């Protein structure tokens, strides 16, 4: 029996044929979906945002805020604490850096990003010195997981910031204030070297004065001889003195590398559980050769040959991320978090060995099949990459 004869004999087949006939006459035309899927995705998660710098504001002697507005359409929403990856062409080298958005998500007209001068800050210094109002920039869509998650963070929050690590918290604090989320209680503890270094001090003080559920404590590590506020580092004792009962609280940390090392120990000594601590990712370590597991025999200055599948060959230093070496040689690969977390730059290593610092977020099977995250991978041998 041919398939059609079989079908004809199955109970109910004719009904289905008739149903299809009717639907084909009166059903909706799928042509109306042209472009719809892509538009809907882009409204929340565009690959690229075209921006204009509308304003540059001095925050402190070493920090500036760039206010960015959309060149077309509306800016996509973000969750307070998220970042955008900002692209730049600096002296012919195309690269990018992720910056937390410091403005409130309730302010839908612009994104503020606040940048502080750092030593050898190739990209940050470019944004601080070269960029002026009217300049055009391109960024990724907002991304990142360092934000309040109502599924499990609760409403009793402690924000621990260090230096320019204040930026995601600035957004979160304003969000709570702007939306009147009075059930969400926050204590922001902000460590800086000296008083002139504190970014957003007046605005944070003002918000804390006006909102009972928001507290703000700046802590100065190198205070003048006479200083009334909190001094030193953010220690277990300081946390206990300021916060009272720690058990219901969720702690968020964002700051320089050294602050994580110090504060995580302090939190551990207070018996805070892992699930109560949220850490913002940070870029490549300052000195990768000091990281645990770095092979002693490899010097950061050592150079290796990296062969690409497209036939190109470049040299890469052991102490520099592969992504930076690639960009220096005019090869741009997809980048977003530049911290080993998002896996956008995931690349197959065809031969050779690389070093990933602890905490790189590589999937188990990606490890098994030889994938690396070049944004935080360092060459330890000559390499071949599938790029």
């Amino acid at each position, binding site marked *: 029996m041919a398939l059609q004869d079989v079908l004809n004999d199955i109970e109910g087949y004719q009904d289905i044929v008739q149903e299809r006939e009717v639907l084909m006459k009166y059903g909706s035309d799928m042509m109306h*979906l042209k472009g719809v899927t892509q538009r809907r995705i882009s409204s*929340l998660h565009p690959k690229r945002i075209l921006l204009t710098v509308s304003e540059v504001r001095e925050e402190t002697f070493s920090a500036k805020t760039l206010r960015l507005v959309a060149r077309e359409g509306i800016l996509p929403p973000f969750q307070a604490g998220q970042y955008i990856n900002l692209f730049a062409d600096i002296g012919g080298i195309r690269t990018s850096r992720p910056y937390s958005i410091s403005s409130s998500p309730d302010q839908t007209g612009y994104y503020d990003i606040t940048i502080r001068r750092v030593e050898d800050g190739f990209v940050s210094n470019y944004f601080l010195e070269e960029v002026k109002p009217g300049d055009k920039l391109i960024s990724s869509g907002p991304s990142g997981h360092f934000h309040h998650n109502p599924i*499990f963070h609760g409403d009793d929050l402690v924000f621990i910031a260090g230096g320019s690590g204040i930026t995601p918290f600035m957004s979160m604090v304003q969000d709570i204030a702007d939306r009147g989320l009075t059930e969400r209680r926050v204590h922001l503890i902000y460590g800086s070297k000296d008083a002139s270094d504190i970014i957003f001090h007046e605005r944070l003080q003002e918000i804390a004065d006006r909102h009972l559920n928001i507290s703000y404590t700046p802590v100065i590590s190198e205070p003048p001889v006479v200083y009334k506020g909190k001094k030193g580092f953010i220690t277990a004792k300081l946390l206990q003195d300021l916060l009272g009962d720690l058990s219901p609280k969720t702690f968020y940390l964002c700051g320089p590398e050294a602050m994580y090392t110090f504060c995580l120990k302090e939190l551990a000594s207070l018996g805070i559980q892992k699930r109560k601590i949220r850490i913002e990712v940070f870029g490549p370590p300052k000195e990768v050769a000091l990281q645990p597991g770095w092979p002693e025999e490899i010097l950061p200055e050592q150079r290796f040959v990296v062969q690409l599948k497209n036939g190109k060959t470049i040299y890469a230093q052991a102490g520099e991320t592969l992504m930076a070496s690639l960009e220096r040689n005019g090869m741009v690969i*997809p980048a977003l978090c530049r911290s080993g977390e998002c896996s956008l730059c995931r690349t197959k290593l065809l031969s050779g060995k690389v070093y990933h610092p602890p905490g790189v977020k590589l999937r188990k099977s990606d490890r098994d099949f030889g994938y690396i995250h070049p944004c935080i991978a360092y060459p330890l041998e000559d390499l071949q990459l599938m790029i």
Partner: protein
Amino acid sequence: MSDYDVIVIGAGNGGMTAALTVARAGKKVLLLESHNVPGGCATSFIRGRFEFEVALHQLSGIGTPEKPGPLRSVLDRLGVTNKLEFVEQPDLYRAIIPGVVDITLKAEREALVHELQQQFPKDKDPIRKFMNLVYDFSMQMIGGLFMKDPEASKEKYPLYFKYAFKNLKDVLDEYFADPYLKCVMGLYWGYTGVPPSQMPFSDFAIMLFAYIEFKPYHLKGGSQSLSNALLDALIQAGGDVRFNCEVKKIEVKSGKIAGVVTEEGDRIATNHIISNASTVRTYVDMMDPENIPAEELKSFKAMTIGPSAFIIYLGLDCEPAEIGINVAANFITSELDGDKAAAAFKTLDFHQWCMLSCYNECGAAFSPDGTSQVAIVTLQNADPWYAVPVHQYNDVKYRYANSLVDFCNRAFPGLRDHIEEAEAASPLTCMRYLGQPAGAIYGQDNFAKDSRFFVSNKSPIQGLYFTGAWVTTGGFEPTLESGWAAGKLALADLKK
């Protein structure tokens, strides 16, 4: 001149097996994927110390090397089986109707019948008869349809001819009166997204039969390990692949495939395309309107887009047993009527119907020692999410997620207090990562009228083939196998 014998659009399950099928036959193939990772649904992501499985719950069609299921046979022929570690699940599922029913069904016919009879003693007889029907029907379906018996007839395969297009609800009603029993028995309808009153009995019977006969499985390293293995095999076989490379256009010349244009504007010539993008997007978004076959557009009118999903991925800082989880697959519902539950998929009200998978229950190493990995899934259509203003989207998403966690916390008290990592995915998230219209996870609604008898994987355009959920049923096994089938079709045409 062609640059490639075959171009495959999309590295989802079907796209990967299609590309590999073609490459292993010695043909020049290029696989294009808009995302940066292969797999589509078959992938994972990391939060904190957890690597979350995105979509695989119970892999069907595997069986054992001695008694291989259909999917194992395909993976064998593609040369990837030895790169994978399969983990068998002893149970079909645990069904929890909070406060009323809590029953675990073994993936073994006699044990399953026995367990159901214990829980529903009044229906002892109908339970056995129903399972007999499932088995006899499935055997007839395999003999008559899958084996293409030339003498297939109503007389030879009476159950198949009677029940194939009947709906699951009618058959359950025919055998049982107890609404709890009907609910527990029919829960696998969730794996197709079609409520019992619409689900073809043939889809249900063959699924239950196959899960019992070939057992549900998981994979060490999750479904990403399967995707990575398939991709690795493709590269080994000489296939090319480009990630972050979306196809913007399919070029057609006088009714024949001529090539593709990528988002970067590269034009790549080929006479054969296997599309793992949906049929809808392949035509509507990638082709000039004058090239779209009228009969395909007409056929689209008979179709509706199927559900997407709302998923919560949880990393817990306790062993599963500590909160009472002891089975990998758990269906939790307070809504006995599947049709009512499915009606609520089209609203933003949480409808008390979900599935909870705990991967630690299918073997170690799915999360660090002393922790567990859990995924809570419910089906959701994208339409109500379109109405949410973009700036309220996250609030709505978290509100929905919290009601789902609260509901599961009733079945597993303490769940909420052990959450160390959590990520929620709405239909819009599915849409973002899969590129599917309306974030559909199973393709179009899998009603009887949309089954393989009415939807073809070969386009009227010469050289265009389809793979994936839109030309078969949704799920891992069907989509993986559909790629093999599409690859074979393309190879046959290449020979001509």
